[in-house]
């Protein structure tokens, strides 16, 4: 996967946000924004939303019902035991296990969901346009093909908004090994 990209490098969050707004006003499609820490304005401007919370709720529901069903099956159906004449379907003492295991199930499933949706997992090949993005630079990245018509306009705009560098390069996937 090889793509030509135009990268605007910024020093600060504020400059980056201003540039994003200007670019959006001109309807130039942004490919991606890379930041060293979460910049909520940028996430919003990219028009991305996540249904993570709904999914997590469903995991919780599944977990709670699953655990209760398991406890009922083991202690009532499969092998009921008599503990001092108390009923086998002892709901109050199932509550604790249900809560803790539900939390556990939600956590594990959420982590896997995150890993799959955000595409991060061990040994994944990644393409980072400029390594300084994980340190102190903010990258505003465009696809060369997408902005071919307004290339000069884009470059002047980025310069005006205080981009310290404008890089045009082929970004390749890389692997740590």
């Amino acid at each position, binding site marked *: 996967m090889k793509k030509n990209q135009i990268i605007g490098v910024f020093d600060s969050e504020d400059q980056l946000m201003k540039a994003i707004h200007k670019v959006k006003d001109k309807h130039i499609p942004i490919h991606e924004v890379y930041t*060293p820490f979460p910049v909520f304005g940028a*996430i919003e401007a990219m028009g991305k939303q*996540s249904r993570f919370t709904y999914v997590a709720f469903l995991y919780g529901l599944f977990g709670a019902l699953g655990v209760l069903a398991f406890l009922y099956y083991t202690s009532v159906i499969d092998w009921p035991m008599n503990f001092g004449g108390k009923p086998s379907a002892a709901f109050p003492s199932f509550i604790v296990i249900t809560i803790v295991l539900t939390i556990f199930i939600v956590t594990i499933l959420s982590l896997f969901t995150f890993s799959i949706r955000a595409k991060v997992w061990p040994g*994944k090949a990644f393409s980072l346009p400029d390594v300084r993005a994980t340190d102190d630079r903010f990258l505003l990245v465009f696809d060369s093909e997408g902005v071919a018509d307004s290339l000069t306009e884009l470059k002047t705009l980025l310069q005006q908004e205080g981009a310290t560098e404008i890089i045009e390069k082929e970004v390749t996937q890389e692997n740590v090994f």
Partner: protein
Amino acid sequence: MYNRAIRGPLVLGNKSYAQVTSDILQPLDRGAPNWWKIAFAFALILVIWGAWAIYVTVSQGIGTWGLNNTVGWGWAIINFVWWIGIGHAGTAFSIFLLILRQKWRTSINRAAEAMTVVAVGCAALFPALHMGRVWLAFYIIPYPNTRGPLWVNFNSPLFWDFIAISAYLLISLSFWYFGMVPDFATIRDKAKGKIKRAVYGLLAFGWTGSTKEWLRYENLSYVLGGIAAVLVVSVHSIVSTDFAVSVIPGWHATIFPPYFVVGAIFSGFAMVMTLMIIIRRFYKLQDYITDSHLNAISKILIFISLIMGTAYATEVFVAWYSGNEFELFTFFKNRITGTYTYHFWAMVVCNAIIPQLLWSKRIRKNLTIVFIISIIINLGMWYERYNIVITSLANDYLPSSWATYKPTLVDIGIYGGTLGLFTIGVLLFFKFIPMVAIHEVKSVMRAGENESKHS
């Protein structure tokens, strides 16, 4: 919102983002300092002692401990509860303060979570060894087995404990790890050596910091934070039910769950304080872990100390007010006075009285005294568990079966071993993992800047 004009900046020294990265990563690039090596060697000796004690325990049985028919729970359970309590700091810090959107947590949560993981690991060792035949420990896992299938007793707090501790360990481990992924990416991209780049690159999961990743990352941390907040309260509540559900005088009290949870957070915060002062002193991270951070922890400690004092007083009051002669005996003849007087009063003085010194601003500013107080609190919390476990068991309903308890070298060895293990874990953390969450600090270091410009 964070008011910078009133509270001052969260990170001192007016640093650039690049400076933050290099400041926090410098311990990873340098060789280990001498104090680190000495501490490591010392901890290793403790671990070897612990390994010997564990060998004796496993090969000969728990008869090598100081337990007897009357006192069936000794140091092992005391240490178990103590370690779990210390382990509460990480979750309390990162999760409660995350939900409350307290920005100052960002410099501390990484270290607190590291502490949690190591402490809970140490804690888990004790119940496992207490089973006696540790090679049959897997019997506690409820799976369709060939023994019936015989299921475990789901009504038993001891089983709840197993579930709670395992879940807590795995959840705090994954919460901690995912918090580090962006920082591992930073190390990967700064690394000069090939091996370092490969190792941290593998740990970084191919993280790039795109909006796509950050969006889900933030969502994940709030979902996990929200759900794990329940764990902070539930884990130690469940530990307390190990005691409260029994019929032993001094144990079967409804105050136990909140009392244990607060006590756990108390010792956890005290341990965080101890560690933070060490990190500041040896790694010169004063600009990140500022005086205002330590001041905030001190104030939390005073507050919790007051709750602890109230809890102790409540226990004694209820024992008297109930008119139950066994409760009266336990509290008045067996704790306040009697064989175990020393442990009771050590608990009260260390946990409820000495921390009150922190009311004074001058003392809060003197980090040597604060450091000593934080150690005293942890000692006091150990005495509290001693006081609960031993006094109630040693002298219960039948005077004919009363007994005294004394730990053996094996008991002490296992405890020493876990202290060594904890120290080694923390030292490795200092050396190989950024102690302060780099990306989180970067995201809050400008907090409130615009507001202060206007004012």
